[in-house]
């Protein structure tokens, strides 16, 4: 097909925001050159993230079984596959997957956010009255960065120990107690998890649409799934610091 030229000044008045990249990358990479493809990558990386936070949350719950159980589990993560696999291979394998996953998710989010702002340079001058776009869907670009900021603190606190008042390598139980004895940390932890919950309330519903696996029959089930998933994740995570703060776990 030949590109149609503008036939009038009226048509010429509409300029594209961007051109389709002239140079299309080789196949799987070309997907990421489009916005639809970026959204697909966002959904895939979102699912990987959801799988990770589910496992991580279940692991955290071991704290209720006592120090030995939790520390043995943490040690187990490093020694899985021994003596055949090297020390920490699972842990590093997971990190190797999660880091690019997070980078892709955030990059795609940033790119879409920028593109979508350019798509409406002049905002509506009267008040909008939204019907379907809910609070969760409109705050994705807020809840996401909040989770990201929290993640940085979280790693400093409980992985590297720099932000922990009394960090002991390998004693996960002790480190958590030391950290969550500080109420501002507990407040931040709960707030960040609520943000994550709101993010997932939209994300876990929306990803079916982005992946293109949605159909009319599962529309209701998707909403239920996303709600339950968000509630389970938030509930599972925030229970621990609260239990520590109020002294249920000593």
């Amino acid at each position, binding site marked *: 097909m030949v590109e149609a030229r503008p036939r009038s000044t009226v048509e010429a008045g509409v300029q594209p925001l961007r051109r389709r990249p002239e140079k299309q990358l080789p196949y799987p990479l070309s997907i990421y050159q489009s916005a*639809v493809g970026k959204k697909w990558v966002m959904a895939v990386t979102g699912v990987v993230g959801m799988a990770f936070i589910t496992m991580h949350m279940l692991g955290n719950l071991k704290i209720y079984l006592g120090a030995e159980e939790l520390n043995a589990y943490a040690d187990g993560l490093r020694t899985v596959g021994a003596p055949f696999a090297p020390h920490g291979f699972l842990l590093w394998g997971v990190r190797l997957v999660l880091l690019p996953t997070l980078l892709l998710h955030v990059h795609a989010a940033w790119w879409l956010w920028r593109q*979508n702002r350019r*798509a409406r340079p002049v905002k509506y001058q*009267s008040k909008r009255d939204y019907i379907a776009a809910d609070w969760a869907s409109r705050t994705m670009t807020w809840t996401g960065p909040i989770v990201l900021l929290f993640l940085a603190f979280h790693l400093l606190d409980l992985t590297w120990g720099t932000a922990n008042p009394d960090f002991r390598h390998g004693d996960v139980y002790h480190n958590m107690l030391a950290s969550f004895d500080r109420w501002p940390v507990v407040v931040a932890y709960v707030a960040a998890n609520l943000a994550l919950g709101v993010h997932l309330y939209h994300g876990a519903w929306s990803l079916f649409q982005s992946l293109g696996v949605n159909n009319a029959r599962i529309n209701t089930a998707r909403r239920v799934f996303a709600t339950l998933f968000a509630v389970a994740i938030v509930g599972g995570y925030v229970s621990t610091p609260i239990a520590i703060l109020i002294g249920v776990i000593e």
Partner: protein
Amino acid sequence: MDFTLKVWRQAGPKARGSFETYKASGVSADMSFLEVLDVVNEDLIEKGTEPIAFEHDCREGICGSCGVMINGQAHGPNERTATCQLHMRTFKDGDTITVEPWRAAAFPILRDLVVNRSALDRIIEAGGFISVNTGSAVEANMIPIPKVVSDAAMDAAECIGCGACVAACPNGAAQLFTSAKIQHLNLLPQGQSERWQRTEAMVDKMEEYFGGCTNHGECQFACPKGISIDFIAYMNRDYLKSKVTNRKLGGQGFAT
């Protein structure tokens, strides 16, 4: 019924616009929204001022030209209703109603409430057609199409191209329009030969002008034809597949 209208007035594409307030009195509840604008315009013409420019044609919800934001909602508060089908009984006597044109980078304002929607035509030109030599018309029942499939295709084909989906979308995305225009062809046997080129070409063209979908779901409620966002999921699936399939065509597709 009496209303106060706050209408966006803008003399031209580059001009600065603002809301102007007009009174519409003695309006019948059975009038359509456009007829109220007509009444106001009669007044303005008699006073010797410029009437409000707004686009309209069929006034029965099929041409897609009359879309405006009414109280912050595309085509006003009613579902499955174009502005021309919106009756004044929807409002309460004495209401103040705010009227604003569609806002998107791809829809520059021409004058008052009229925007330039030709970016939507660019998407259709990219692949919203079937290029086969039809010859003389074939007997309609020669191509068997399951009822559910033809129903779904007709649901998509209801799109009147009014641009409400873009206007309502917080991102200014044209996904609902594009998916409807792709899927009403992709669902039918006649659309199969160009299915993958069509999908890729139309989506890529759409992305040149519009924002991207983040699944707010606002468009399907704004749509005067009630087209479902399920078609967007279907388009996403076809787009991903087209990336593989078009590669195999080895450059024999549309020249883009």
